[in-house]
């Protein structure tokens, strides 16, 4: 409602789509939980509808089972064959992906950073 910058520079969740040669990079930032998992799932599926997607969670600080369920649903969609995941994953996110065996269900992209 206002243009004035507020003290709240840290929204819980942000999703950025960057077009790259060969497809899109979907960058997720912040935290995925029940209040943000739907946006995450919907936007990711929509991006997959347009072709290859690299999911970049390198700036994601938290994910709970709502996020795991969202990925689970994305993986059930045929378009998930276009999905690869950037291997840079922060420890808390890695932990829940491992705990739920989701880590083994994902295809990891060659890292493009050095």
């Amino acid at each position, binding site marked *: 409602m206002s243009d004035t910058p507020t003290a709240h520079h840290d929204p*819980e969740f942000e999703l950025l789509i960057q077009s790259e040669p060969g497809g899109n990079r979907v960058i997720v930032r912040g*935290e995925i*939980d*029940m*209040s943000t998992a739907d946006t995450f799932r919907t936007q990711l599926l929509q991006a997959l509808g347009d072709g290859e997607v690299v999911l970049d969670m390198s700036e994601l600080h*938290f994910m*709970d*089972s*709502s996020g*795991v*369920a969202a990925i*689970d649903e994305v993986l059930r969609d045929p378009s998930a064959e276009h999905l690869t995941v950037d291997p840079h994953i922060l*420890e*808390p996110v890695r*932990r*829940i992906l491992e*705990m*739920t065996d989701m880590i083994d269900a994902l295809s990891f992209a060659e890292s493009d950073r050095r």
Partner: protein
Amino acid sequence: MVPGVRFEARFPAIPVAVAEVRGKASALARRCGVSEQGAHDVALAVSEAATNVVIHSGSSEIVLIVEAHDGDLHVIVADKGPGLVPRRDSPGLGLGLPIIATVSSSFESRRRDGRNEVAMVFPCPTGGIS
């Protein structure tokens, strides 16, 4: 806050409150001297329990209680609902309680003071919340 002192707060049982509840709990865990992973474990377990309150309990509020005693951090997520109710049509994958079990030392499901409580225990290296 010292051993034996009790932190209690209420939050509306709405999706956006879940981040606040887990943030509060993990901040208190940090004051118990836990590692980054320890604080994250508390955040994760509380996130699961608070999510369950919003999805399953029908309660209008999430109650968070944190207390340190006997070298342990006791974190309770409570609601005014009927307790864990079997739902054949649960929208979730059923990962919440097993995740809580995995990251906590133990957890208990009980009724107390007319509330449904999920009471989780974590280590508290400093013995109290500083």
